[in-house]
């Protein structure tokens, strides 16, 4: 059998063809002593097919908590005993958050709501927020509002929403262990509608939720099939009161192998560090991931938890001589 890193060097680095699900399982089982070689290869793939730039984004929760869905990793579900209380952000606070984000040099600002899908009240608040931000801040606006109807897709696009986030969360074969209130196919359908609309699709998932390595490879392969513009990669941060609240934090080396595997599955995709990296990887691992396939970061805090200071990430990018992508309105 051929060595998987030799295969990837030809297939992915030279030809730009992502690895298959079966090949990704081999990547995810690369021994620790070959991890530096794997990360170096993933970094070379990233630089060759995406370039040196790193995309910086900030996120904000417009509507926190009280979600009717039961995503087992999420502290915002109203079905669990999580201490997170429901609250809405007002428009001035939203604009202030966009300004704070833009000051870091970020080009993306994502407005997120903990809902199954947007109702008229939420759509109205999102529209008001987008208008207010556009009047004062020069930044691309993304949204993450759950499952959409075609009319809602069309509305968001007409309002100038640049990118829409809707994660697969987990592999199709593990999805039922993570969410029971909606199906993998429902999520997939929203992703397809977003892609077909011309908005950029941001679609990733979480790892470290008890899935097998084969299911981790399956998620990467299913994302590659969907071919999103961006893939945010979250590592489970076990939240108190949720069904996954007592799971162990994912091993750092497994997390790095996962980053490399996702890059080798999707050589041209924006692969973003999302939640959980501070716990799973720490400062050293964050650096290794940026040199192992990652080419985008969420700076500052997340929706209900805190991240590293934005300056820590920006200083690291400067030290690594990775230029921050500049604003370029594409819609």
């Amino acid at each position, binding site marked *: 059998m051929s060595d998987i890193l030799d295969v990837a060097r030809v297939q992915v680095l030279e030809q730009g063809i992502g690895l298959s699900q079966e090949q990704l399982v081999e990547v995810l089982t690369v021994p620790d002593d070959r991890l530096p070689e794997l990360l170096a290869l993933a970094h070379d793939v990233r630089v060759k097919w995406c370039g040196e730039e790193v995309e910086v984004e*900030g*996120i*904000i*929760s417009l509507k*926190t908590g009280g979600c009717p869905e039961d995503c087992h990793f999420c502290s915002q579900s109203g079905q669990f005993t999580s*201490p*997170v*209380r429901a*609250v809405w*952000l007002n428009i001035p*606070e939203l604009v*202030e*958050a966009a300004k*704070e*984000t833009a000051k*870091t040099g970020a080009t993306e600002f994502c407005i997120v709501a903990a809902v199954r899908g947007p109702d008229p009240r939420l759509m109205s608040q999102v529209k008001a927020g987008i208008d207010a931000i556009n009047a004062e801040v020069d930044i691309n606006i993304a949204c993450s509002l759950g499952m959409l109807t075609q009319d809602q897709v069309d509305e968001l696009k007409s309002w100038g929403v640049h990118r829409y986030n809707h994660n697969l969360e987990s592999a199709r074969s593990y999805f039922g262990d993570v969410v029971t209130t909606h199906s993998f196919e429902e999520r997939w359908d929203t992703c397809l509608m977003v892609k077909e609309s011309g908005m950029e699709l941001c679609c990733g998932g979480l790892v470290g939720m008890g899935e097998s390595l084969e299911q981790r490879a399956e998620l990467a392969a299913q994302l590659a099939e969907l071919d999103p513009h961006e893939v945010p990669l979250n590592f489970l*941060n076990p939240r*108190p009161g949720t069904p996954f609240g007592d799971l162990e934090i994912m091993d750092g080396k497994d997390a790095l192998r996962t980053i490399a595997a996702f890059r080798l599955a999707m050589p041209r995709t924006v692969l973003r560090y999302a939640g959980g990296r*501070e*716990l799973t990887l720490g400062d050293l691992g964050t650096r290794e991931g940026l040199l192992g396939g990652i080419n985008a970061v969420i*700076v*500052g*805090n*997340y*929706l*209900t*938890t*805190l*991240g590293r200071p*934005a300056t820590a990430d920006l200083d690291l990018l400067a030290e690594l001589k990775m230029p921050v992508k500049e604003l370029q309105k594409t819609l």
Partner: protein
Amino acid sequence: MTYCGRCGRDLADGGHEDCARALALEPPRYCGTCRRRMVVQVHPMGWSARCSVHGEVTAD
């Protein structure tokens, strides 16, 4: 401060070292004075947590 901002239990009730470590990466959810659940808003560069009785605390 009587109650743990993370788990809401009395600070004198067992160890809260894990909670203290966790609070480096998450805002408090319980009021330290009365253990009411607070309304918390996380912003890209900060956070605020409001108790209906004891007012607001922030990251600053």
